[in-house]
C-alpha cells in the first residue's frame, strides 16, 4: 500500500472531520451548539484549504483560507449569536423527522454522493480528488438539514454550511475558484446573513414565532 504524502493525509483527515461535523449539525438539537458546530466546520475548512495551499504551492488559497477563517469562524457565528440573543430563541427546536431516521437518510445520501463522485474524481488529476465525494456529501447533508428543520435560524445555518460544502468541493476539484469569485461569494454570504437577520425580526413581528410553517399560509384567517 503506497503511503500518501503527509499533507494529503491531513487533507483527507480534515475532509473526514468536515463530514463528521455535517452529521453532528444534522443531529444537533440546540441552536447555540449548532452555531458552535458551524464555526468548527469553518475552522476545519480553513485548515484544509491552508494545507492544500501549502501542499500544492497555490498561494492564492492562503487568502481564501484566511477569508474563511475570519468570515466563517468569527464574523458569521458572532452575528448569529447576536441575532439569537436579540431574538431570545434558545429553545430546543423541533424537527419534521426524528434524529435516527434523519441519520439513516444521511447515510444513504453519503453513499449516493460517494458513488456519484467516483467517476469524476478518476478523471481529475489534483491530489485532493478523492475528497470530492465528501464535499458533495456535505452539500447533500446541508440540504437535508434545511429540509428537516422547521425554524428559520437552523435553516439559515444549513444554508451557510452548504456554502462550506461547495467551497470545499471547489478546493478539492480545481484548487479553488478565482479570487474575485471567492470574494464575491464571501460578500454574498455576509450580506445574505445580514438580510436574513432582518427577515427574522420581520417574521417574528408578523407571526410571533420563527416557525416557518406560518409562511406556508397565503391568506389570513384560514
Amino acid at each position, binding site marked *: *500500500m503506497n*503511503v*500518501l504524502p503527509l499533507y494529503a*493525509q*491531513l487533507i*483527507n*483527515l480534515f*475532509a*473526514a*472531520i468536515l*463530514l*463528521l461535523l455535517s*452529521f453532528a449539525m444534522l*443531529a444537533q438539537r440546540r441552536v447555540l451548539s449548532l452555531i458552535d458546530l458551524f464555526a468548527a466546520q469553518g475552522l476545519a475548512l480553513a485548515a484544509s484549504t491552508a494545507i492544500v495551499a501549502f501542499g500544492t504551492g497555490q498561494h492564492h488559497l492562503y487568502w481564501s483560507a484566511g477569508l474563511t477563517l475570519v468570515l466563517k469562524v468569527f464574523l458569521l457565528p458572532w452575528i448569529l449569536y447576536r441575532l439569537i440573543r436579540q431574538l431570545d430563541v434558545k429553545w430546543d427546536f423541533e424537527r419534521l423527522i426524528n*434524529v*435516527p431516521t434523519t*441519520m*439513516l437518510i*444521511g*447515510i444513504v445520501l*453519503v*453513499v449516493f454522493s*460517494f458513488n456519484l*463522485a*467516483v467517476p469524476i474524481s478518476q478523471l481529475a488529476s489534483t491530489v485532493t480528488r*478523492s*475528497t470530492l*465525494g*465528501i464535499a458533495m456529501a456535505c452539500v447533500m447533508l446541508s440540504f437535508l438539514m434545511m429540509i428537516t428543520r422547521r425554524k428559520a435560524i437552523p435553516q439559515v445555518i444549513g444554508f451557510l454550511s452548504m456554502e462550506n460544502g461547495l467551497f470545499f468541493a471547489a478546493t478539492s476539484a480545481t484548487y479553488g475558484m478565482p479570487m474575485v469569485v471567492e470574494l464575491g461569494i464571501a460578500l454574498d454570504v455576509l450580506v445574505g446573513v445580514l438580510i436574513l437577520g432582518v427577515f427574522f425580526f420581520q417574521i417574528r413581528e408578523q407571526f410571533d414565532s420563527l416557525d416557518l410553517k406560518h409562511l406556508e399560509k397565503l391568506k389570513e384567517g384560514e
Partner: protein
Amino acid sequence: MTATALLSQAVQLALALALAPLLVGWVNQCRAWLSNRSAPPLLLPYRTIRKLFMKDAVVASNASPLFRLTPYVVFGAMCCAAAIVPSLATDLPFALAADTIALVGLFALARVFIALAAMDIGTAFGSLGARREMFVGFLAEPALLMVLFTASLISGSTSLPSIVDTLAHRELAIYPSLAFAGVAFTMVSLAENARIPVDNPATHLELTMIHEAMVLEYSARHLALIEWASALKLFNYSCIGLALFFPFGIAQGSENWAAIALAVPVLVGKLALGGFLLALIETVSAKMRIFRAPEFLGTAFLLAVLAMLVHLLLGS
C-alpha cells in the same frame, strides 16, 4: 502451537483476571477525584470479591438451575474473550479458534444468559433490567460489528491478532476511518459496560438501573463472579480498543520474552490513561433517558458506517 505460545497465553489470561478489578477500582478512584469526593481505596473491588466469596449464597426459592448456572457461563465467556483479545502478545493459540465476529458472539452469549437469569426469578426489576439490557444490546452490537469490520477491511483479516499485527507494523499514516471507528467504539463501549450516558454503575435507584437491576437477586459467590465478569468485560473492551487504535507496544510472537515483559508496563500505562479518560467522560456527561439510547447508539452505528465508507472512498 508451541509451549512458549501457550505460556504467553496463560500469562495474558492471568494478567487479565488479576488486573480487571484493579481497572474498575482505578476508574472509581478517578471518578471520585474528578467529582471532588474522597476516593475509595484502589483495591476495594478485590476486597469486595473476597468478601462475597466468603459469604453463604442465598438463592430465591423459585430459581431454576439456569439462575445458578448463569454466573459461571458469564464468567467463562468473559475469560474466553480475555484469551482471544491480544493485550500483551499477538501469538495466541486460543485466538485461532475465534475471530472478531465470534468475539461479539461471546459477549452476546453472556448477555443472553444474564438477561434470562434476571427474568428467571420473576421479579419486576429483574425483567425490567433484562428488557433494557437487550434493548441496548441489539443497538450496540451492529455498531460494534461495523467498527470491527472497518479494522478488518484495513488489515484484510477478521482475526484480532493479525489485525493488531498489521496495524502495529504499518507505515505511520493518518487513518480518518480509524478515527471515526474509534469514536464509535468508545460510544459502544460506554453502552455495553453500563457506563454513564446509558446506565449508571453507581446508582441505587432501581427504576433507572439497567445492569444492576439484573443482578439484584444474586448474592455471595454468584455475585462475586458476576462482578468479576463485568470488570473483565470492561477490561476486555479496553483491550480491544487499545489493540485496534493504539496497538503500539504489543509484543510480536511469543519467543521474545523481553518484548512481552516490556508490554506489561505499557499495557498498564495505557489502561491507566484509558481509565482516567473513561472517568472523565462519565464525569462531564449526564445520564440519558433510556429512550435517548437509540439515538446515542444510532450515532455510534452511523459513525462506524461512515468509517467504512470513508475507508472505501479515501483508501485510508
